[in-house]
């Protein structure tokens, strides 16, 4: 196994062309998989020296540009007013544990697209866009198009997530992230991100290979439950040792109701 830590994006793109080369961001997922014998790449391209991937800056409209190597801890420490950043901060606080949050990165989480992860759900609800860089230049893909399947994204081989662009969300909107897990810090059984006020955009995690978007739902109990029931009937959640598919369908409407009302009324979940 080879290891390189390039200092420029161009060097990183070249390094990623090697056989079985993968990016090493915070390592909180990749190294765990290596330790368990589930991953054995031939080349590790560490992103830690790439200044282009760093930086967390508030935009003029209240949104955020989040460099890919921004840690969950940095995001968890924010207390922003705008709904989009507030949603990502609340979500970051629920990812795993402090020692994981101090190393894990948003870029790493987004690129991995674990169906039980937290960020993909929040970013879909917040209508974020992912800035992607590659040898042929950079491009932006909406989060709502970025997550394609189980551990599958819009990244082409050799591309890197550069930054996440988070819009401020509707003026005066609230945000909420409801996460149901067996113990604190665990992967979600089902999670729901909501952003909005009278109507909310919701994203659901844990009910399929990718987060599921429910846009423009009226933030009232009946409408939220109805949207939840419709989704429960149509989606195909997994059954695993944490919970059955039937349970995920069963709790989905209630979690959607909670997330939607919490976003509307500004109650932190």
């Amino acid at each position, binding site marked *: *196994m080879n*290891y390189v830590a390039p200092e420029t994006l161009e060097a990183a793109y070249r390094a990623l062309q090697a056989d079985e080369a993968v990016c*090493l961001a915070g390592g909180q997922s990749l*190294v*765990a998989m290596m*330790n368990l014998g589930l991953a054995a790449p031939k080349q*590790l391209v*560490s992103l830690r020296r790439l200044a282009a991937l760093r930086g967390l800056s508030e935009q003029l409209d209240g949104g955020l540009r989040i460099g890919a190597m921004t840690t969950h801890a940095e995001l968890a420490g924010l207390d922003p007013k705008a709904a989009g950043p507030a949603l990502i901060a609340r979500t970051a606080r629920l990812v795993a544990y*402090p020692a994981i949050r101090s*190393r894990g990165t948003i870029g790493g989480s987004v690129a991995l697209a674990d169906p039980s992860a937290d960020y993909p759900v929040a970013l879909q609800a917040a209508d974020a866009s992912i800035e992607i860089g590659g040898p042929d230049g950079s491009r932006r893909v909406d989060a709502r198009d970025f997550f394609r399947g189980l551990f599958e994204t819009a990244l082409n081989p050799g591309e890197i997530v550069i930054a996440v662009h988070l819009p401020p969300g509707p003026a005066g909107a609230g945000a909420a992230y409801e996460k149901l897990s067996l113990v604190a810090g665990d992967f979600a059984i089902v999670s729901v991100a909501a952003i909005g006020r009278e109507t909310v955009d919701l994203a659901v995690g844990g009910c399929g290979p990718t987060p599921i978007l429910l846009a423009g739902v009226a933030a009232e109990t009946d409408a939220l439950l109805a949207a939840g029931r419709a989704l429960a009937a149509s989606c195909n959640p997994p059954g695993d040792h944490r919970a059955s598919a039937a349970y995920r369908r069963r709790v989905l409407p209630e979690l959607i109701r909670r997330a939607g009302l919490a976003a509307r009324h500004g109650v932190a979940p």
Partner: protein
Amino acid sequence: MRTERVHSLLQVNGEARDLLAPVPTTLLEALRDSFELTGSKRGCNHGVCGACTVLIDGRPARACLMLAVDVGDRPVVTIEGIADANGLSAVQRALVASGAIQCGFCTPGFVMSLTDLFSRDPRPSREAIRTALSGNLCRCSGYVKIVEAAERLAGLPAGPSEPSGPEATHG
């Protein structure tokens, strides 16, 4: 997987340490096997239990999830680097005095997490203490006396859980 070894220069507990090891070597393996710093423990090797917690660049990290080759020149502090000139640090003494230590295998990880907490806030709230320790598993203690130790160190009043001592009874 070939076992070609690469060289890294690490800063551990204020000392420069040379490492020659294969790329997949974690910081935990480097500490325990190459540097003979066995105080950081391997409880699971997949980042859940917290027994391998060290400080990297002043923040807590799982040594088992960090590749030694990726640490670079960021300073690493392990449990062996915590005791001060007077012996045990205040965090360590608090854990000893409160009866929080049972089997002790989780203790180095808790010391590191508490050291980080108290370095940022000398008077953390109960909630901040519990959040800071949320990634350290303990199977022996039920966590109560660990939190009591931290609360005493933070100058918080005795919590409602403080027991009043054994009572004689007959039946």
